[in-house]
């Protein structure tokens, strides 16, 4: 074929392509046209953001031409709009629709041609414009802006207590392919909004309300360190105003409430790099251990007899155990000499004393168990305060001696009687 025939053939193909595009546009226009509108289509309101028929048509065309950016843009708008409507209507299909829409938006974000076209359009709106940095920034932050919508839905649902619906959006934000810094900003925003009432509640000493708000956030983001830290700080502040004698039941209830979050904080990977979060955890452990030690010691020193004595010992045992557990949970990341270590060791000593006392009136086998438990926790205390020779001299050595005696007795065939 001659070059002119080539050129004519090429031109004819282009004519056909333009005609085909015109046909597709016409079909799309018809498919997207609102059912309650009519007219030539010059009013943008004539074209709906989506119609069921329009989306079906777009999907069909997209399958045959997956790289067509106009189609992708149509689909991004249509699916996103439908997801929004379904979300507001409480339709469960919204969860998947958001994801579909975000996939199309991501395709547009990564398409250089799409943004070049926008730049061209910008130049036609602002002739002579040479600064496109703002558009590049928009492109870079496009998904973050789209996910910001989900952050707002999370806040909205959290406020009304609709945590199940909030979790759908938490999943979207968590799984979104965005830089960690962007995800951090989104979570930070949600945290800021949901917990915005906490400072005022703390100022009013309304700690229960403050914790309710923080825990609402933590139920959605259980590993968010700033929230775990805030939980610890509010608990510690609450404890600071309580008395081990008068408010013990409340202290125990706070311990139960804060325990799962403190456990999550203690094993959090980011704790090493967050001194303030570590400090909050140590402070909380210290306060629990201090209150527990004081309460346990007060019962131990009462030296009551009979039934009252037994009750006192039980109370003391429970208090020391609570202090011991909180100390054990929190002291490990603290620096040597930290107050929480001292209080932990005090609770261990109190518990060891009680165990030794308990070992007096039971069988040698039972006594051996109790002594071994005491020795085990005293070793923990030694590890917490390496320089404290008193732990060995005053507590560990006598119990080890007692254990040795008991084991001798058992070896000689004694199976009952006191352990002393």
């Amino acid at each position, binding site marked *: 074929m001659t070059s002119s025939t080539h050129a004519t053939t090429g031109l004819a193909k282009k004519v056909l392509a333009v005609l085909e595009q*015109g046909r597709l546009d016409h079909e799309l226009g018809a498919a997207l046209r609102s059912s309650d509108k009519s007219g030539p289509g010059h009013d943008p309101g004539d074209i709906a953001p989506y119609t069921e028929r329009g989306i079906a048509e777009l999907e069909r065309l997209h399958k045959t031409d997956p790289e067509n950016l106009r189609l992708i843009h149509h689909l991004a708008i249509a699916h996103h709009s439908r997801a929004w409507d379904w979300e*507001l209507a409480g339709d469960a299909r919204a969860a998947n629709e958001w994801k579909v829409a975000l996939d199309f938006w991501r395709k547009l974000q990564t398409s250089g041609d799409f943004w070049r076209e926008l730049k061209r359009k910008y130049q036609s709106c602002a002739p002579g414009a040479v600064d496109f940095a703002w558009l590049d920034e928009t492109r870079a932050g496009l998904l973050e802006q789209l996910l910001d919508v989900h952050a707002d839905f999370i806040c909205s649902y959290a406020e009304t207590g609709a945590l199940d619906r909030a979790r759908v959006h938490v999943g979207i934000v968590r799984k979104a392919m965005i830089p960690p810094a962007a995800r951090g900003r989104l979570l930070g925003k949600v945290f800021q909004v949901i917990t915005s009432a906490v400072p005022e509640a703390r100022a009013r000493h309304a700690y229960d309300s403050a914790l309710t708000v923080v825990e609402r956030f933590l139920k959605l983001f259980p590993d968010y360190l700033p929230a775990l830290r805030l939980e610890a700080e509010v608990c510690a502040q609450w404890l600071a105003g309580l008395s081990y004698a008068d408010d013990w039941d409340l202290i125990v209830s706070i311990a139960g409430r804060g325990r799962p979050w403190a456990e999550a904080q203690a094993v959090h990977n980011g704790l090493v790099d967050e001194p303030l979060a570590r400090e909050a955890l140590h402070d909380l452990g210290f306060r629990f251990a201090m209150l527990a030690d004081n309460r346990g010691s007060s019962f131990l020193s009462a030296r009551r007899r009979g039934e009252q004595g037994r009750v006192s010992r039980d109370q003391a045992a429970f208090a020391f155990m609570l202090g011991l557990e909180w100390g054990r949970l929190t002291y490990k990341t603290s620096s040597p000499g930290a107050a929480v270590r001292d209080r932990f060791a005090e609770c261990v000593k109190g518990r060891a004393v009680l165990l030794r006392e308990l070992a007096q009136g039971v069988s040698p086998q039972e006594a051996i168990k109790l002594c071994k438990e005491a020795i085990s926790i005293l070793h923990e205390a030694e590890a917490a305060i390496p320089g404290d020779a008193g732990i060995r001299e005053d507590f560990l050595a006598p119990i080890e001696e007692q254990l040795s005696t008991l084991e001798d007795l058992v070896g000689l065939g004694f199976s009952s009687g006191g352990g002393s």
Partner: protein
Amino acid sequence: MNVWRRGPLSRNPYYHTAFRLARVPRETTDRTLIVELVSQTRQLAEAVPDAHSIRGKPVADSEINRAELVLLDPRQRILEELLEHPESLPAASPWEALGREALEMMEAGGSTPLKLTNPKPFARWISQCYGRSLCAPADAGLLFGAAELELPPPWGRPGTR
């Protein structure tokens, strides 16, 4: 400015783009035309409030004003385009481009007419046209001129005999 979060969360932003609020087609970039269209929309909304409504709610004048500001600010306007469907009807530009290309091709070929290098395919078509003209009513033939110029019987068409 996040274009998806300009309104309350309970309002789907795709129904309330500046283009829809102001009734300005997305392809319109001329500032004067935008101002004129917005003005028409404003007049319409003032004259017949229900005539310009979105999802059953009349568009307020303040919304139209805000939309106009968006459309007249090139940056905001471009961002607004993200929320609006691309032009649904083919823009003039592809046709113009084709026209220009065709013109260039014709001009490149010189002023002399194209040579008919292979007339054979046309012979059958010409004979068919000739046959049809003989059987057709006595209107002026497209190829053979007015009826009075045609051959008389027995050479002409049966209907004219």
